[in-house]
């Protein structure tokens, strides 16, 4: 599903240059649930952003679902993001003046799907994250866990190939974190490929594979015995 080879990324920090990713080789098969771990500054978020086409690599090859991702202009990137990817952010990034259902239907709007169908799909996905009754509530009326579930519903609504989650539990307490991970595990069980960036070992243990980054290189890549989040809820 995902294949990257020799990925490099540097950031200009004034006069000096910060080499964040120093040649990453990384493959993900369809249906995997991968945790990308590492301390802050290890490059894990940068990797995810490049995978999500929110950022571009300086060097290296990136193939997503048999499509080589290169020479992206913003229009093309937007199209790919819409077609291939769903995003879940640490800070939820819901649009605060839109209610839950409207937030969920937004990626469908950019797919050019009719209003009626959007509404229907949005309610369907809200139902799947257990928030159907909250469809007409604004983000400000939802708890952190609920917001993240709305964000997951939104990421899923466009039926992406890959779900990218950047510290999805970073702003949540332990109990809510496990609820969110439970949801992510369930979505993965249905066959969706999911990448989760986290620095919390217990969250990483709930994935099927853990990739550890340190100083811009992969230092460890192992399959783990998945801990089911539902056991903790």
């Amino acid at each position, binding site marked *: 599903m995902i294949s990257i080879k020799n990925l490099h990324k540097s950031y200009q920090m004034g006069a000096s240059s910060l080499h964040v990713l120093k040649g990453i080789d990384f493959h993900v098969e369809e249906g995997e649930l991968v945790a990308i771990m590492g301390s802050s500054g290890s490059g894990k978020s940068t990797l995810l*952003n490049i995978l*999500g086409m*929110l*950022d*571009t690599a300086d060097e290296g090859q990136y193939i997503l679902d048999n499509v080589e991702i290169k020479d992206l202009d*913003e*229009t093309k990137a*937007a*199209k790919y*993001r*819409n*077609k291939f990817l769903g*995003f879940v*952010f640490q*800070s939820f*990034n*819901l*649009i605060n*003046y*839109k209610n839950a259902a*409207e937030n969920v239907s*937004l*990626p469908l*709007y*950019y*797919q050019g799907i*009719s*209003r009626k169908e959007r509404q229907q799909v949005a309610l369907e996905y809200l139902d799947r994250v257990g928030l159907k009754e909250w469809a007409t509530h604004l983000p400000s009326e939802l708890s952190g866990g609920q917001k993240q579930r709305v964000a997951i519903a*939104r990421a899923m609504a*466009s039926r992406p190939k890959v779900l990218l989650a950047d510290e999805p539990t970073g702003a949540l307490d332990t109990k809510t974190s496990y609820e969110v991970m439970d949801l992510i595990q369930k979505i993965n069980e249905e066959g969706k490929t999911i990448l989760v960036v986290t620095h919390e070992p217990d969250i990483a243990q709930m994935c099927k594979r853990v990739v550890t980054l340190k100083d811009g290189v992969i230092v460890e890549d192992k399959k783990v015995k998945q801990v089911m989040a539902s056991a903790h809820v």
Partner: protein
Amino acid sequence: MFNRDRWQEIFQTISKNKLRTFLSGFTVALGIFIFVILFGFGNGLKNTFQEFFLDDATNTLFVFAGRTSKPYKGYKADRRIEFKNDDLSDIKSEFDFYLEDITPRITRSANVKYKNESNNYSTRAVAPAHQAIEKTILMKGRYINQKDIQTQAKVAVIGRLVAIDLFKSEDPIGKYLAFDSSVFKVIGVFQDEGGDNEERNIYIPYTTRQAIEKSNDKVDQIIVTFRPELGHLGALAFEKELRLFLKAKKSIDPTDQNGIFIRNVADDLKRNQQFSNVLQLIVTFVGLGTLIAGIIGISNIMVFVVKERTKELGVRKALGASPKSIIAMILQESVFITLISGYVGMLVGVILLQNIGTTLEDYFIKNPYIDVSTAIFSTFILVAFGTIAGYIPAKRAAQIKPIIALRDD
């Protein structure tokens, strides 16, 4: 553009972000409103000005007699020139081609009595043609006619304020006024847009005045009007020929600057029009300034709006919005808001102007107005510049990598 979904998206954004909508709308509405009001006031000033100076007919020459300053043909210098009745008929026959009308004017001050009331007024002894020249408007009765001139009738046409002063609520027509040891029958009451002083005049036949003054045929002043189609150049030519004719007739040195004076209203008119043009220039300048201020205002708001929405735009981009759709969304929204609020501002301004009418006359602003085309054009300009001003930050926002936009807290 006519995508129903996009409009719905825009209406939602507008209605859910009331403060932002209000701020940008208010800026545009205020800009247009102030522009319309200032421009209208400028036009009101012009109206007042034109009324001040353009009271009399504009195709008029006033001819005065003075004293000569040079000896000529055996006459000494400092000789007093006087017009007589035959000058009138001579001008009439000599300048038939140019002439429209001619009247003498003999001005005397008189203490006028009616019953117990009396007051000093200036009396003007004139011919019937004077009515058109002075743009005298009759409220009641009639003006002096040719028969009055021939019979040296003791009749008077009095100003509106004279009637109020002396007759109070009585109808002055047919009543008798006493002045210059004669009795005059009031045959008409007039008003004049030239103001209060004009309405404190009394008109009598010039032949009557001459009869009172020991049956002479002296005339103070000759007023002639020329055919308007002559234009300014024709007027100047007429003035020159008239001057030469009168100088020859009165034996004045052709190079003498004194003796005969001619005031050409066409010259005044030209000067006044120049002043009027300067006023127009000031009005335009003020209007432009206001428009520019409005444009700067809407530009600032647009920068602020886009800045405020950076994160939202980042989210939209992460969800698959193309830069084009981002720009289109921001622009369509801003054009919509500026059009609606610009129209409202314009409408309020125009309605206010119409209701002002003459209430600000004390401040020299009368019947302020703005051409509909000017108002619409300026609204359009503001909307267009608002759009351009919105396009630049919108384009920049659309080009920011979503990751940077999302980081923006």
